[in-house]
């Protein structure tokens, strides 16, 4: 798969471009926030899922919220594929399908990491300092 094809399967390039064009000088700051926030949510989600299974209702709600926030943040920034898998994790957690959640989260981590790499490459190529 070429870089361009990879970008298009993981990223919503149009959304990223329109966000950049709207935010103008504030865009690099948003990029930095995105990487910081999404990485933090990803790490917290993985840690929560590996640490405590089975979960109490309260713990489950906290983990669902992490998956939900990661989904929302990824989609808002154009990481649609990572957002889609995060949604899958959120759904399975909500339905109590904990047997598949850990595997889903590993897939999510892999797609999220690839998406971030693709995003960094795309931004560098379009002249955004990161």
């Amino acid at each position, binding site marked *: 798969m070429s870089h361009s094809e990879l970008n298009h399967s993981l990223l919503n390039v149009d*959304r990223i471009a*329109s*966000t950049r064009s*709207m*935010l103008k000088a*504030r865009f690099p*700051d*948003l990029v930095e*926030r*995105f990487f910081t*926030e*999404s990485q933090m949510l990803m790490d917290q989600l993985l840690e929560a899922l590996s640490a405590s299974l089975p979960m109490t209702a309260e713990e489950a709600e906290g983990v669902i*919220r992490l998956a*939900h*926030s990661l*989904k*929302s*943040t990824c*989609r*808002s*920034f154009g990481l649609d594929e990572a957002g889609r898998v995060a*949604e899958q994790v959120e759904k399975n957690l909500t339905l109590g399908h904990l047997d598949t959640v850990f595997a889903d989260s590993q897939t999510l981590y892999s797609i999220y990491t690839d998406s971030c790499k693709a995003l960094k490459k795309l931004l560098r190529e379009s002249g955004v300092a990161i």
Partner: protein
Amino acid sequence: MKVLLVDDSPVDRVIAEAFLLELGHEVILGENGRQAIDLYQQHKPDLVLMDEVMPEVRGYEAAQIIRQMDGDSWVPIIFLSARFSADDIAAGIDAGGDDYLAKPIDQKVLAAKVKAMSRIAMMRSQLLDVSSRLEVANAELRRLVDVDGLTGLANRRLLDQRLPYELARCSRSQESLAVIMCDIDEFKKYNDRYGHLKGDDCLKMVASVLQDETRRATDLVARFGGEEFCIVMPGSLEGDAQDRAEAILACIRKLALPHAASATASVVTLSMGLYCCVPTQGVTATYVIACADKALYKAKQEGRNRLVTYTSDISASGRVSR
């Protein structure tokens, strides 16, 4: 519009803020439901855009609290959420939200929804404005319906409403009720001498004395017609009503309004007829006014500028009937 934007995700917040700023709105930012409530109270925004899934206080909960705080007033609330099922939408509307906007936000959809909400808010505000002006106008109309335009006293219409009510009330509680009929002496001559405009001034000054000297909240001073006035004093004994009437007569004399055409005195004077009773069933407003009027007639006969209290010998003349 002043928009309160609440989202716990810094990325979503920055993007939504940029959309709103580009659309020309002023934006206040909050990070969770608790801040949403505080900022709402502090800034009184025109629109709230709020994420649903947030730590501490969730969006639905914050919307419920805002609606409770607001009472009758209304500010549109649009929920932002990456969850977009039929149940989520129904729950959001039940919580007091007005619309739902799916994340990631599409700027065109956001602009359209903000425009729609702003239109509804404007129509509501116009409606409230019209209804508040109508309320003021209605209150003024209600007041004017019961007020005599020249003197500002109660008019005949209000007297006709209140007197039967007070009679029934005093009959139930077995309290006495006094009615005083007053007439400005030789007022036709006053008008002929000084003109109708001065006559109107005279009526206003006399009315003002009657109002000032009739101090209890339950008393009613009304313009009966022309230069005649009627005072209704529920709960007043005859002696008290006589004292009040004498005080009014003294005040009118003290006004010293010149009345050169009067054969009674060189100043404007009043004649008064008082009727006082503990009403029994069947004692009508017409009856008590007729009794007071009969006493007034006697006051005129006896030389004016005085008070006459109704007694049974006046009744014997046959001019009063139940």
